[in-house]
């Protein structure tokens, strides 16, 4: 006869509420792991989607994502002519805060690229790519913009028409990605009002020009070593050439690390809070049963029966709570503002932690229960 489950059966409602509470708590922990993984996936979606072997950027920078990088556009032709290079494309990146023609605010992470060269959106889920050299934009569906919507971009609020949609492409900050023609993007990023340009020149400075770009993406001939081409580029062209993998490292190391640390911190705190709460719940459940425990000892039940009662209830609360938490997140993850990516490994680790927490939480209760004097069963009341 399983005492733990019979006690639960007898106190169904109370138990259900307890499990629901623990479930919501564990749901938040599970969501945190999902957001943690999602942040990583989001941050890497852009560099991975470019399928470039090398990123050519301004020397002595960790650009273009970790810090600004500016190089002349003709770099692309220099690089293209190097041995082993199959294709090169100039790109720009910037965040824009704007509105649709209807006045709805939109925030986008904009990539300017040259159609037909490395760079640009991954395969579209709707619409088509840029067919004209101006005023068209491809956006990610997470922006909630529709095909045909017009977005006002740049200092002159030029209307750009949404012609294509991607799916699941956001920046490391979670902004939907958008793509425009490089020429448009350069104008948006570097166009300086004439008055300011005159002032800059009068001060002896070179104003930014619309012929600058942020990076050049390089694809190589089959069998060519990325490292040796990178070496040649830095040696002969005085530019930094970063292999794709290292560009990903910059993103994880410099750009999203703080956020991940923060998430990790939250996860640690939440796990600790869950541990304390689960231990308290189990302790309370045990203390409510002191008389029954005394009676069990009195009638001759071995300690193993009493320990089993407590541990089974603790694990039931933990595992059912975990199941409810997981179900809540699976059902609700589409409504989260950022990508929630549940990884089997993370879920297994959380489950393991829950089990350990339940067992650790039971220790206090077990110690208390084993100290209960069987004679207490005799006390009237």
């Amino acid at each position, binding site marked *: 006869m399983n005492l733990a489950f019979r006690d639960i059966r007898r106190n169904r409602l109370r138990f259900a509420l307890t499990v629901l509470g623990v479930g919501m708590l564990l749901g938040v922990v599970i969501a945190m792991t999902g957001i943690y993984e999602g942040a990583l996936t989001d941050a890497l979606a852009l560099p991975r989607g470019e399928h470039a072997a090398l990123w050519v950027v301004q020397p002595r920078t960790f650009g273009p994502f970790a810090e600004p990088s500016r190089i002349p556009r003709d770099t692309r032709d220099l690089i293209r002519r190097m041995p082993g290079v199959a294709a090169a494309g100039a790109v720009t990146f910037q965040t824009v805060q704007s509105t649709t023609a209807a006045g709805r605010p939109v925030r986008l992470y904009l990539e300017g690229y040259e159609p037909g060269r490395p760079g640009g959106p991954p395969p579209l889920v709707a619409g088509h790519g840029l067919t004209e050299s101006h005023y068209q934009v491809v956006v990610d569906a997470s922006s909630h913009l529709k095909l045909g919507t017009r977005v006002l971009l740049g200092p002159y609020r030029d209307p750009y028409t949404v012609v294509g949609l991607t799916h699941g492409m956001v920046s490391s900050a979670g902004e939907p990605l958008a793509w425009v023609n490089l020429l448009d993007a350069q104008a948006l990023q570097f166009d300086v009002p004439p008055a300011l340009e005159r002032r800059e020149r009068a001060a002896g400075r070179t104003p930014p020009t619309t012929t600058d770009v942020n990076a050049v993406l390089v694809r190589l001939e089959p069998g060519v070593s990325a490292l040796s081409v990178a070496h040649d580029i830095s040696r002969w062209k005085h530019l930094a050439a970063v292999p794709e993998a290292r560009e990903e490292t910059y993103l994880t190391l410099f750009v999203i690390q703080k956020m991940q640390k923060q998430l990790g911190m939250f996860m640690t705190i939440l796990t600790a809070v869950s541990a304390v709460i689960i231990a308290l719940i189990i302790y309370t459940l045990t203390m409510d049963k002191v008389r029954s425990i005394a*009676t069990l000892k009195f*009638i001759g039940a071995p300690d193993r029966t009493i320990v089993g009662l407590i541990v089974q209830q603790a694990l039931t609360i933990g595992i059912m709570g975990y199941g409810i938490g997981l179900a809540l997140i699976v059902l609700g993850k589409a409504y989260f503002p950022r990508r929630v990516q549940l990884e089997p490994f993370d879920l297994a680790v959380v489950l393991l932690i829950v089990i350990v927490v339940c067992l650790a939480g039971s220790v206090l209760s077990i110690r208390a229960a084993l100290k209960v004097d069987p004679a207490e069963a005799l006390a009237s*009341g």
Partner: protein
Amino acid sequence: MDDGLQDVPQARIELRGISKHFGEGSTRVDALVDIELTVGAGEIIGLLGPSGSGKSTLLNVIGCVSEPDAGWMRLDGELVYDTRWLRADRRRLRLTKIGFIFQTHNLLPFLNATENVAEVMELAGLSRHQARMSANALLDYLEVGHRRQAFPGEMSGGEAQRVAIARALANNPRIILADEPTAPLDSARAHIVMDLLSRIAKDHQAAVLVVTHDEAIFQRFDRLVSLRDGRLVAT
């Protein structure tokens, strides 16, 4: 076995020189003083005495729940205490040899009647199925078979008490200790319970020790003993 002690083969409970006190100094209470008591197989004995005279303490000592200070004690022929506990597994002893009927029923609140009785049988090694069958037979015998599915909180005091008696008898104990078992019962039911305890004593050759204040059942005992300030006195 030659321990120099007088051998009483038919004795189920033997206490010699058992003493127990609580507290120290000005708060010291001598709850049991030099108790000499023998209860034979098949004997049913009434234990009388005013409140605070040590009746419950004596049952706890015999039930191996409280440790005495001095003396020795033999249960069902086994020497279990001789100025110290001699048996490590006293719970097992309670489970298989001693049936306890409490002043209040002390059933497990989350088990129904059948489960409360079957639990101790399972703990003693019976299969779940066997335990349930025997438990139900015992409940029928005690005329609470119709309340099998009821939980203690849903039973009357008398029903709960009879379920508790069924539990005490579940493993056919050689020793039955009852602390005012008939207190929550009307006189007709009290007599049924006494009939049952007498029959158990005779049929199973058990020693039955019953604490009671109920004069109506005094004549049902083979013998009456009285406690006063922790000492056994002639009745």
